């Protein structure tokens, strides 16, 4: 599947919360080929910032030829992105990386923070399988995801660090009960590194195959610069997060 870099325009750039936005870009070829877990590398038309920014594909609309990217404004690049409007130009490079392995029957999706974004696309492609989603965040304000999973999951469980929504605590503390009540044959997790480590450890103890999605600083996004490599637990050659991942089997990288 060839990767492409296209000059395209923004269909919409709408606010979800104070610091989270959803960018809809027109990229029909990428939308058609993309699979859950893949990302695009976005370059805005101005010179600065110099480098592209990687964003997960949080959903696609194949008919409309659009990609949805949900991002938090954390620095210069995402702040520039947040200022863009409908019809502004961006260059979109993708689809990049390897997606999730969908060969499972009863999946559990665990999302933390912005890691919950790519799991929307995943939940959609897992249909009509019975899917459970567990999502965690710091507080209620961060838990705006539920409507986006409408109709995609059998059940949605929520944890917040401060207890302002759902169960108080981390996602991993909700796992024992969920696993007791369901026969999961796969856990997909995307979120902060510590959370993925904890979930992967739990999955291993319960012998449930687990896939994680890693984040690293990226320059090229296509396997050329080696800025994104990580230790490979199963061999001596390091793995490139941008092309070997970002999705890995947990035991490969954690």
């Amino acid at each position, binding site marked *: 599947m060839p*990767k492409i870099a296209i000059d395209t325009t923004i269909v919409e750039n709408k606010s979800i919360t104070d610091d989270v936005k959803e960018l809809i870009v027109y990229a029909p070829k990428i939308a058609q080929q993309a699979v859950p877990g893949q990302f695009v590398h976005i*370059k805005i038309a101005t010179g600065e910032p*110099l480098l592209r920014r990687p964003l997960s594909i949080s959903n696609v609309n194949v008919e409309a030829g659009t990609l949805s990217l949900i991002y938090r404004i954390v620095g210069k690049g995402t702040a520039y992105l947040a200022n863009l409007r409908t019809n502004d130009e961006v260059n979109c490079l993708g689809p990049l990386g390897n997606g999730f392995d969908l060969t499972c029957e009863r999946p559990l999706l665990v999302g933390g923070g912005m890691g919950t974004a790519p799991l929307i696309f995943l939940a959609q492609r897992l249909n009509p399988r019975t899917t459970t989603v567990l999502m965690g965040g710091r507080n209620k304000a961060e838990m705006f995801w539920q409507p986006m999973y409408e109709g995609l999951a059998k059940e949605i469980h929520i944890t917040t660090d401060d207890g302002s929504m759902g169960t108080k605590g981390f996602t991993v503390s909700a796992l024992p009960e969920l696993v007791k009540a369901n026969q999961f044959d796969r856990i997909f997790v995307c979120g902060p590194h510590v959370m993925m480590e904890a979930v992967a450890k739990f999955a291993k103890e319960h012998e449930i195959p687990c896939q994680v999605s890693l984040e690293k*600083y990226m320059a*090229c996004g296509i*396997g*050329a*610069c*080696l800025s*994104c490599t990580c230790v490979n637990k199963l061999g001596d050659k390091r793995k490139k997060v941008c092309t070997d991942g970002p999705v890995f089997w947990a035991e490969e990288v954690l």
Partner: protein
Amino acid sequence: MLSSETMLEIDIAGIKMKNPIMTGSGTFGFGEEYSDFVDLNKIGAVVVKGTTLLPRCGNDGVRIAETPSGMLNCIGLENPGVEHFLSDILPRLKKYDVPIIVNVSGNTVEEYGQLAKILDVYGIAAVELNVSCPNVKEGGIVFGTNRDSAAAVVREVKRNTSKPVIIKLSPNVTDIADMAVAVEEAGADAISMINTLIGMVIDVDTWKPVLGNITGGLSGPAVKPVAVRMVWQVAQVVKIPIIGMGGIMTAEDAIEFFLAGASAVAIGTANFVNPSAVEDVAKGIQEYLVKKKLTHVSQLIGQLKVNK
């Protein structure tokens, strides 16, 4: 006769290229990574990732940081080693009609010689010596910042290979012209310049360096004026061809290097921003030549007009 095909053709130290646009080592992988975006058969030469005698896993921690109009990197020469390159990668690259230049790094003068000897095989057009690495035997001084050790590396490599030898100069020196003269006298066939400028970025929240290796090499548009100046200075004092690089994003950037005295150029960081940069720059130079009613790119080399 002077079709659009031939107006960019050049010969650098015996390496025949369809155009004077090469790739910067470490920014273009082994070439294959870019095959969705550029026709490798249309590139002047592919300079592959820095290769060492043994495989290296590179530096831990954060490896890149963006800076105003540039970036720092401290990849740490992660590479699969020269034997793997020859057995697994080179055979695949041979199907392309493009000169392959191998960028090499050693810990000692002898290692550079060994690498050059191992790489003196069919399918490789030249070696490029990355001397921006510490000399283990000499207490870690960087080969490329000392005229005697840089010259020693060139002499050792020349003894061990039949291929053209390109030496890549470090800009982290007091007198770049003096370095250039030293490596030319030692027998280098061409000079490429510049490698990255050492820099650092500090996180003011944590008071820690952003990069895992503390310091890293600066590249991108931010370094271009320095690179152009250095190419110009070196062009005054050597006869061997210069491959200019440092911050080239567009054809106009490349043309500055030709005017300053470079016979070819390499594209580095720009590949990360625009994966078809190499082809786009070549196309742009051709258009520029037509617009200026010139028939060959060589008519630009060293043509800077300095009013005295």
